[in-house]
């Protein structure tokens, strides 16, 4: 999204365009990490920062739910630390 001039006439520090992740960005990261997976990603709010993801893969076999979610977070890496504000997550073994 584009920043602009503030109402008081000053320019914010980040006036360059900030690339927000799209559902496709998340999906490609997840498919790269779990090649056999069925992945569905939805942008819940249309603002590219609240997502819902369903990941179904053999890689989750034998893992606890916590471990499955941790694997997804690891695959998304830095996006989880900043650009993604919320990710409603469902994981299942295929």
């Amino acid at each position: 999204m584009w920043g602009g001039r503030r109402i008081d006439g000053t320019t914010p520090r980040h006036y360059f365009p900030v690339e927000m992740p799209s559902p496709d960005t998340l999906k490609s990261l997840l498919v790269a990490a779990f090649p056999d997976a069925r992945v569905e990603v939805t942008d819940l709010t249309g603002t590219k920062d609240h997502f819902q993801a369903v990941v179904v893969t053999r890689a989750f076999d034998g893992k606890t739910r916590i471990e499955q979610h941790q694997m997804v977070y690891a695959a998304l890496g830095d996006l989880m630390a900043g650009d993604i504000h919320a990710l409603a997550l469902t994981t299942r073994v295929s």
Partner: protein
Amino acid sequence: MADDIRTRIESLLTTGKVMLFMKGTRSFPACGFSNTVVQILKKEGVAFETFNILADPDVRQGLKQYSSWPTYPQLYVDGKFVGGCDIVTEMHQNGELGGVLGKKPS
């Protein structure tokens, strides 16, 4: 992670048997997901303590590393990580949560 932060986190985790690290407080949750877990714990009818991570940037960052979990809320029982909003909601719905929280089967 710095040792003093790790020590603080480990002592915080055992402040209560059931510890919820959340955005805001139980009376004024600052996030819908944190609020969801507060409401679930109230429904389960167990005593729980909350810690507002918005008021403490060191704990907010440190606990994410400690648990390898990048988001809040985070629920702990007896110092052990149980899950975030999605997992706690699922366990509440399928009836697992009561046992984890140490409730006697009724």
